[in-house]
């Protein structure tokens, strides 16, 4: 099984910074339809800060936001979490911050992990999202991307798939889950205030989470 190295994870995080910058307008436009037109702006701000923070840490000696060296998964994820919490704001800041915080607390390996551990970390992270936001599948949130994706990843992992296979399976279900948010009525998040009028639009957080999984499937494989 291909290993997920700390360098790959950094590449993934850097890629996210590019991806959210490129999709800043698209995500913001999705948020205009059923929210407050800031989702792309929030993620772009947050992940640029993540990039800057990691670069600062990596340029030798300088300590990350969490005051730790960047050379272990736990300190890297802690830094990502703290940076997102401090710079994103809004619902996604709290949720993604919690996601990476839980991952940083759960990670056991230091510089390399296998696909199975990665899936279990995503599971812990998503538990954090659920705990923080009290949302469930079907509420038209980022969970509608994450939960089906996790189930597919879990299945692929237990049937012995490679890291690449695990992530590809996850992406497929993530995309289906994301697309399914279009016909849902939002029950959590800002869009829930619209009631019926939220139907017919993709959930911006579901889309941004899908982009995150897509990048993972391309880079962490």
């Amino acid at each position, binding site marked *: 099984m291909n290993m997920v190295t700390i360098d790959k994870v950094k590449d993934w995080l850097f890629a996210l910074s590019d991806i959210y910058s490129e999709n800043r307008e698209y995500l913001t436009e999705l948020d205009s339809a059923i929210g407050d037109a800031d989702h792309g702006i929030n993620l772009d701000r947050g992940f640029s800060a993540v990039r800057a923070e990691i670069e600062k840490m990596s340029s030798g000696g300088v300590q990350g936001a969490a005051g730790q060296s960047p050379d272990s998964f736990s300190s890297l994820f802690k830094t990502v979490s703290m940076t997102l919490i401090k710079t994103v704001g809004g619902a996604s800041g*709290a949720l993604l911050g919690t996601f990476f915080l839980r991952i940083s607390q759960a990670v056991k390996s230091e510089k390399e992990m296998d696909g199975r551990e990665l899936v279990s970390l995503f599971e812990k992270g998503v538990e954090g999202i659920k705990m923080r936001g009290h949302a469930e599948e079907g509420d038209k949130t980022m969970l509608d991307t994450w939960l089906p994706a996790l189930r597919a990843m879990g299945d692929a992992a237990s049937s012995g798939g490679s890291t690449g296979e695990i992530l590809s399976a996850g992406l497929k279900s993530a995309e289906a889950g994301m697309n399914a948010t279009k016909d849902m009525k939002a029950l959590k998040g*800002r869009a829930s205030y619209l009631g019926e009028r939220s139907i017919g639009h993709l959930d911006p957080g579901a889309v941004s989470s899908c982009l995150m999984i897509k990048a993972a499937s391309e880079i962490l494989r």
Partner: protein
Amino acid sequence: MKKLINLPGLVVSEALHGMQAAHPDLLKVFFDPNYIIRADAPLKGKTAVVSGGGSGHEPMHGGFVGRGMLHAACPGDVFTSPTPDQILAAVKAVDGGAGVLNIVKNYSGDVMNFEMAAELASDEGIKTESVVINDDVAVKDSLYTQGRRGVGATVLAEKICGAASERGYDLKKTAGICRAVNESSRSMGMALTSCTVPAAGKPTFQISENEMEIGIGIHGEPGRERLPLKKASEITGMMMDAVTSDLPYKKGDRVILMLNGMGGTPLIELYLLYGEVYKIAKSKGILISRKLIGNYITSLEMQGFSITLLKADDEMLGLWDDPVLTPALRWGI
């Protein structure tokens, strides 16, 4: 996008610099993380009252920091909840040992970020209580979702809790009156135009010359329904019906009323609307005891208005009348 700004990304911090320059007697502004505190905070032994939320709703919240109202405000990015570290810094700066009341509007982002901040504060040994404001009757089916939005009642709660703190109410009692204010407040808003988030660069929604959005919030999000533009009397009628049919009141009850402009509504229209509101309230047997007419909780340059009614008891009215001296609200001093 037509805005009087330098760069979209700098709007919030530059406006905060302006506030600091304008009101050094009333408040102190801190940056990175951004928060605003009363110039004389912390007040030893007094319950501190803190609020915060996205920027773009000015004067809320920064304009309500000062004597008799907020001890601190945490302004997030435009329409984006503040972050936990920001809230924590503000809480720490104003805690006078008697604990801190956080007044939070019911949006996932605000609720979660304040929750995280409260956890951090408690780690540092600071007592906090949070009251979540959810007065917006425009939200339907609120039983099955995360509930209603927090809008205009926030302003009234901030004034009343600020006065309560000034009078020496302890944290529990201040939180209690905050909850009571929230429970007997109802609001409803509408818009003629959208607003433009500076960093987004274009209007959040499109709306044609003869349409209006009824039941909007304060973030340019779509409302309960889109209708053909109607006369002021009809619009006010619809909104007052929605608000009063949900407000637990009986004939003869006194209210504090806020007729609030969304930022781009001229005052002449607000007064015209007040004439309509007044007639309707009278016909329903509601006594408008106190009132605010103006821009208090806005959505950038949006044209539109909201109505908030707070069924007030003697205690609330007394606290309301207590002196206040902030950039945006001042009387008795």
